[in-house]
């Protein structure tokens, strides 16, 4: 592959949307209200739409004429998925689901606003289109953080617990792989280290407004970007890949 770094870089972006979209898809029909069900499904739809654009591009870049958006989505082994640990965390309850979304959306929005300036025209175009969608995701998740944080004592406690538990996955969002660094050097990739302050300010502002405490933990987990996932990931893939693995080389 000529563009191994670019290929890896695209997957590094898209796998986050893929796995988060998958997690949201699991909830479809099981939400606390029809409205949240619709919104969650909508976010999942947006994310998978983005994934399709990224993987179609990755398939081109791969130089492998058998590669398609679907082979990339469904036919990799677990160690080859590059999503951050945050997005694979389980749908423990609506609090965890929303906090996971919130912590990702803030990053995602900041990231896309920079990716829009990429020297890679395709990535810039995907970013431009996605920003509108992700702005809505961010509005939805941060509104719910406010509602749950400043709602009832129970909701406050539950969402605080989710914030505290998921906080340790935020730092990985800014971790740079070798492919990331190479792409930053080429002007294609986003230098996420420059987004970190804005990110923590952005989420801290909402948490404060929601009367929630900002966790003080200073230890963080990483590994997802190197393909070292949590034990949840295997089960996500077992379902997600089930059809492609069981009925290989077919069209659907």
């Amino acid at each position, binding site marked *: 592959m000529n563009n191994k770094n670019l290929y890896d870089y695209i997957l590094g972006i898209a796998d986050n949307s893929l796995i988060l979209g*998958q997690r949201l*898809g*699991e909830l*479809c*029909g*099981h*939400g*606390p*209200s*029809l*409205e*949240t*069900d*619709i919104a969650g*499904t*909508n976010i*999942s*739809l947006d994310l*998978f*739409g983005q*994934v*399709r654009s990224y*993987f179609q591009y990755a398939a081109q870049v791969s130089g492998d004429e058998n590669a398609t*958006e*679907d082979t990339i*989505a*469904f036919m990799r082994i677990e160690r080859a998925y590059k999503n951050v640990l945050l997005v694979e965390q389980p749908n423990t*309850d*609506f*609090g965890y689901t929303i906090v996971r979304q919130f912590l990702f959306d803030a990053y995602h929005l900041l990231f896309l606003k920079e990716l829009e300036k990429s020297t890679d025209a395709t990535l810039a175009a995907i970013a431009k289109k996605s920003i509108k969608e992700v702005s809505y995701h961010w509005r939805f998740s941060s509104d719910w953080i*406010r*509602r*749950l944080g*400043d*709602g*009832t004592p*129970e*909701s406050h406690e*539950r969402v605080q617990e989710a914030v505290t538990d998921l906080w340790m996955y935020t730092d990985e969002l800014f971790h740079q792989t070798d492919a990331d660094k190479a792409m930053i050097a080429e002007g294609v990739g986003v230098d996420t280290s420059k987004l970190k302050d804005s990110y923590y300010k952005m989420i801290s502002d909402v948490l404060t407004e929601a009367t929630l405490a900002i966790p003080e933990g200073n230890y963080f987990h990483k590994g997802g970007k190197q393909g070292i996932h949590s034990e949840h990931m295997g089960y996500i893939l077992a*379902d*997600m890949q*089930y*059809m*492609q693995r069981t*009925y290989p080389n*077919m*069209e*659907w």
Partner: protein
Amino acid sequence: MSEKEVKNLEEIFEARIARDEKIEPKDWMPEKYRKTHIRQISQHAHSEIVGMLPEGNWISRAPSLRRKVALLAKVQDEAGHGLYLYSACETLGISRNELYEQLHSGKAKYSSIFNYPTITWADMGAIGWLVDGAAIINQVPLCSTSYGPYARAMIRVCKEESFHQRQGFEIMLKLANGTPAQKDMAQDALNRWWWPSLMMLGPTDAESVHTEQSMKWKLKRKTNDELRQQFIDQTVPQADLLGLTIPDPDLKWNEETGHYDFGEIDWDEFWQVVKGHGPCNKERMNARVGAWERGTWVRDAAMAYAEKKEKRKEVSKAS
């Protein structure tokens, strides 16, 4: 109101319906009209949201990204249909919470078809093709039903359902033209969904209790048996196109009637499922009631937050 006045209002009301005028929420209406509509519209709304479950079951396992996106969009549409229909129902003076309560307690019904399990990907095709196909046949006439909010909701619903049906047929077509494994999967799904789809058009006219009144109010334009015949006549050529065999040895074209003759429907099965003994009645109710109960704290939080916000606004206005 005196009995006479009521009688007078009823006559005016029936005359309006006969002239194809729409009845709107603020109009006077007979209590029976209101109750019948609440029953039918809520049953329809419940069917949409329970109907999200069998298809939702395959979102995590859809075999391609394109299909996954389409399936998500479809299930989302169903949630949307639920939303319009609950809203239409609420115009009749009942709250969404009361309607949920009726669903969760088993007092309100939903379409029995959703009590069958989705066990292969082909079921996503069969549901779109057959179940949505039968639903459209049930629903198209409702686009011109007498109650305005219901008729308007149905126009939107029907448009989307047609799209879903085409999407389902397209899934079947791809399978039917695919590998032997895929073709088997398609045939198997047709085998399992054919008879329940026929049952979706309701009990035979002889057994149907609401037909006459419903006809008058334009909640029904044709009898169940007529609708069923229409569905069969429309679907058999589609199955031929797919190269699939409808699991009914008695099915054959009748030159004389210009319709397909078909075999005996197992009405015992139908009534068993209606009574709650279908393969997934319990799972479906557990899923709905479970989601509702697990969501209580979330809905309470949203309400508490809205109240706080309102109060803060008042305070800031006052100061």
